[in-house]
């Protein structure tokens, strides 16, 4: 009995090693194999995306149009819940059996740096697609070593939404495209009235897009240009972070954590003069706000005009067995027809400029924010987040240390000094992983 146990253990060890080695190996070696599926020939493409019913309806709508142009390509739309999407994608890629088209966001960088994605640049050149027809930030967000690894489908930026009634009440001028952070601060201070729990600005925090709105437009950055150095401790970035801390604690023009309400939206309930947040607030404000007038504007300017970009894109894994057909799919979804269908929702900005600038997008219907067009200004000012293979971990570091600054009034210098140690270590790890 004892002997057979030992056998069993040995076998387990061997299978464990084989399993883990096999997994990585297959993903690594799959680079060269070229695609089957010539254009024009019958082909099947599996297409995975995340999201809910809304996303599903959009994808199916685009597919209906696609069928008319490419009846020979059958697309299997595979909806994966957002929760667990990354894990699923990673598992299929590691198993060497990826979907032919995959939707990705910032994690594209990890996949690209490990050589699992097809470089789309040759396809773009061959088919005469000019990437300058797309917003610059959206293309740059999916470029790895100057190669386009994915084509952007949707984008948005941090924007400013403001409550016109609160501005009128204090006789303040509405925010414009040319507003500066000083204008912003002064207005927020005027609106703030803690006795009635009214704040100039809604929640601001350690979430990357939130703090980076200040940092980048103040002229700072999280990482150096080549993403190998931690630069959040530069004087510009420090000033931006100090400003956020002051907004929360010194002048209390933004609520402290304990002043937030669980389950109550301070923006739609009219408790805040402004919020600086994602574009998803536009449609929900249009649907939910009845008690006051509101509008949108680009985020204020500092030393620079900069607003963080949210986006997602479609990529083709190197191990896809049907790259030509997959490319047709990507091209169609991110091309004019697909973009127009997205534009009709008026939510996120279509990265294809000609569509974004057309009425298909700008004509937003009932109860529109008057300055909806400022979305385009924001898109021009957008900057792509500095993704690395350590994107998630660096975000956790920011959440931890900036959280200490914003929630516990820790000194900016102390917290950033500690954050630097951690991020430096992560960047060192990133360097090794990318080699």
């Amino acid at each position, binding site marked *: 009995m004892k002997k057979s146990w030992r056998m*069993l*253990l040995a076998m*387990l*060890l061997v*299978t*464990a*090693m084989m*399993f*883990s*080695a096999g*997994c*990585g*190996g297959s*993903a*690594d070696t799959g680079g060269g194999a070229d695609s089957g599926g010539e254009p024009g020939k019958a082909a099947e493409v599996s297409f995975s995306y995340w999201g809910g019913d809304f996303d599903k309806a959009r994808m199916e709508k685009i597919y209906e149009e696609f069928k008319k142009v490419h009846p020979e390509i059958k697309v299997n739309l595979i909806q994966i819940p957002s929760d667990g999407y990354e*894990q699923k994608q*990673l*598992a299929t*890629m*590691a198993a060497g059996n990826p979907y032919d088209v995959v939707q990705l966001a910032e994690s594209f960088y*990890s*996949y690209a740096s*490990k050589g*699992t994605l097809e470089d789309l640049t040759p396809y773009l050149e061959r088919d005469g697609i000019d990437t300058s027809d797309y917003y610059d930030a959206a293309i740059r967000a999916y470029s790895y070593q100057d190669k386009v690894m994915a084509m952007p489908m949707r984008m948005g930026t941090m924007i400013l939404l403001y409550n016109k009634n609160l501005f009128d009440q204090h006789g303040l001028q509405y925010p414009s495209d040319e507003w500066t952070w000083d204008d912003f601060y002064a207005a927020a201070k005027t609106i703030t009235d*803690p*006795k*009635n*729990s009214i704040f100039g600005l809604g929640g601001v925090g350690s979430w990357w897009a939130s703090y980076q709105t200040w940092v980048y437009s103040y002229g700072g950055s999280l990482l150096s240009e080549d993403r190998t150095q931690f630069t959040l401790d530069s004087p510009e970035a420090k000033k931006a972070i100090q400003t956020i801390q002051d907004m929360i604690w010194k002048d209390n023009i933004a*609520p*402290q*954590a*304990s*002043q*937030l*309400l*669980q*389950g*109550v939206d301070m923006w739609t309930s009219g408790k805040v003069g402004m919020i600086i947040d994602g574009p998803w607030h536009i449609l929900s404000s249009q649907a939910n706000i009845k008690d006051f007038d509101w509008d949108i504007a680009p985020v204020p300017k500092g030393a620079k005009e900069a607003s963080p970009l949210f986006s997602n894109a479609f990529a083709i894994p190197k191990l896809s067995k049907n790259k030509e057909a997959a490319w047709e799919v990507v091209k169609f979804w991110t091309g004019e027809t697909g973009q127009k269908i997205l534009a009709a929702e008026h939510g996120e900005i279509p990265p294809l400029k000609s569509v974004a600038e057309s009425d298909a997008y700008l004509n937003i219907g009932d109860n529109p924010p008057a300055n909806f067009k400022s979305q385009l200004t924001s898109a021009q000012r957008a900057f792509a987040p500095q993704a690395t293979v*350590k994107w*998630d*971990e660096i975000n*956790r570091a920011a*959440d*931890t240390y900036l*959280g*200490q600054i914003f*929630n*516990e009034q820790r000194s900016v210098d102390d917290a950033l000094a*500690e954050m630097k140690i*951690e991020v430096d270590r992560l960047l060192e790890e990133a360097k090794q*992983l990318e080699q």
Partner: protein
Amino acid sequence: MPRFLHKTNDLEGSIMVKTRRARSLAKRESRNFWLYTSPWIIGFVAFTAFPFLSSFILSFMQWDVLSPPKFVGIDNYVQLSQDKTYFWKDLNNTLYYALIGVPLTIILGLAVSVLLSKPIRGINFYRIVFYLPAVFGGVAVLKLWTYLLSPGTGDGMNPGLINAMLGWFGIQGPGWSQDPHWAKPAVLLVGLWGVGGSMMIWLPALASVPKDLLEAGEIDGANRFQRFWRITVPLITPAIFFQLTMGIIGSFQIFMEPVIMPGSSKTWTDSLMVVLFDNAFRFYKMGYASAIAWVIFIMIMLVTLVNLYFSRRWVYYESK
């Protein structure tokens, strides 16, 4: 052939038949044994032993799932021991949950069960009421608690129900999850809500305390407290020991509460299981996560062994 020889032969033959039969019976029995136990064995090997061993091997490797694993020796463990921001902080939080949470759960659980062991009218109703929280569990309830515990301490802010009720008595409620000092107690508080669930263990234990001993105590002039402390408690030490052991193991594995109702800074409330999960399934550092898993395992093992060792001094089994 002489008759006796024939008989002998016969005898030999029947013995041989018998042994053959016995052998085939033994064979069939062993085959059946493997057959009937195979669901468990296969399950154990595939879902327990294999991951267990893999994680041990992985804990000495660096593996991001996409690239092949790389052997790094004890690097993961070294890095872990130096990780003050997450690992040590989260270990500290976990120990807090164990050291404060487990005794509180035992004392409150026992207190509730003692009350619910009294033969009063409508006792079943009370038992159901106190047991229900153990049935309702999970994310929805935790979400509800985040609303109940909403602080709203600013001027003119509407607090959650708990702080509102404290306000009726002129008490300024704490910031709960939004306050670095109250975030962990908030997590414990939510756990205590389900304390009635432990009556499944306490009630039978209390019922098994012999009535004659309690009566004898009463006749000898022991008051209620003395009877409880000197007769009941010693007799239910096996149940206390069981709750203590399971409670400590459970509190080392606390996961859902800090994930669903984290503090304003996650590091206020995160437990070891959260840092394990984050490393495995957010950062895809499987080796590092495996190392954490083994550290948790070894800690639970050690604490349980220490517990077991000292139990000889205070746990009383009737059979001894």
